């Protein structure tokens, strides 16, 4: 763990604050996502994904380092011009909001987090449609389903959604190992899971 590592940040910042910072805008979410998949520098991210100016990208990287989401792995070009120095980072973990963490946040912020997740998913689906990856022969899943459950059903649903999410992270690790052994070309995948209480049913519209 580096000096800016997760352990120190965990002690310095409540997890809810760290999560909030990681998800405060879609650029940070995108940087963290890419750094979880592979080592990345601000310059490389900017060259491959854009996201505004290079200083803006660097600022976002620095903030993610400060809050323990990114860890420095190596530096290239040391000894040369300061602007030529390239720092590479990896993501320390997925920014998962679990029940306890969400409860630490003010109500208004909890709602904001949901908005950010939907916005990021929408943006990624647009990219997938534009690139044609959503229309290939591979399966895909995209559903928005209203349900009306009792307390028992709600508890079971949340438990199942949580379980699928944590299973995905395990599957990610297992797939990394299989890919390392087989040399199979990895498939970039986006998965989003949301379950929340809706307002009561609308009254009769005009």
């Amino acid at each position, binding site marked *: 763990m580096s000096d800016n590592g997760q352990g120190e940040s965990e002690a310095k910042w409540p997890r809810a604050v760290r999560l909030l910072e990681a998800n405060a805008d879609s650029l940070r979410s995108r940087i963290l996502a890419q750094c979880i998949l592979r080592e990345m520098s601000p310059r490389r991210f900017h060259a491959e994904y854009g996201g505004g100016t290079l200083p803006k990208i660097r600022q976002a990287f620095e903030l993610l380092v400060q809050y323990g989401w990114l860890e420095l792995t190596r530096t290239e070009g040391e000894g040369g011009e300061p602007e030529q120095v390239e720092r590479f980072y990896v993501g320390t973990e997925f920014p998962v909001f679990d029940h306890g963490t969400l409860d630490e946040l003010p109500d208004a912020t909890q709602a904001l987090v949901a908005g950010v997740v939907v916005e990021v998913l929408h943006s990624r689906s647009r990219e997938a449609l534009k690139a044609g990856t*959503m229309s290939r022969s591979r399966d895909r899943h995209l559903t928005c389903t209203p349900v009306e459950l009792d307390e028992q059903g709600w508890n079971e649903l949340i438990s199942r959604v949580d379980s699928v999410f944590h299973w995905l992270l395990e599957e990610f690790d297992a797939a990394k190992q299989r890919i390392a052994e087989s040399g199979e070309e990895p498939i970039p995948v986006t998965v989003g899971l949301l379950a929340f209480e809706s307002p009561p049913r609308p009254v009769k519209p005009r």
Partner: protein
Amino acid sequence: MKDRRHVLDVPYTLRLAKLLADELRIKIVTELNLREMSPKSFYDQFGGGSISRVSRAFDLLIEYGWLRLTRTETGGRRRGAVEHFYVANHPAVFYDETWAPLPMSMKQMISGGIFEEFAGRVRAAMEADTIDARDDRHFSWVPLLLDQEGWDNAIARVDALFHWLFEEQEEANLRMAESGEEPIPMTVGLAAFESPKDTEKQP
């Protein structure tokens, strides 16, 4: 997993086309996946133009296998008329063979529509303060790199969760009918799709 598409000798694509041609029909199937309703009770709760328009939409959905009759009732305020109650046979889902041949513009429209629906539901829940009314809810998204086996497993898990929702809805309806417990309206959004290897530059 039980495939509930084959309720008629009508191609599923045609059934989907009939359903998607009218927003009212989509709304009816969505609501009748949750509970039993008659054209009159649907109209009383959600409108839909006129009772005759709603009845015609119900008739078409029955003809194309989206709805099935559960019971009839007479008496009371019906003044001799018979009220027919229905439930949806299954949710409207694009399966691989129905999704793949669609033109790109239609895929974009459908996917965009789902996310708009999603965003609208999040906004409504934020405005009504229900989004954080409960201690437990789930908001997450993850980018993953998977092999084919991992992808197959992931899609199977997400699909299974989606289909389980409807089984659980049926069981919850039975439990609530016995206990009188008030239903909790919820929105469940599930997304799993292949992302581009190199995301296009954003401004």
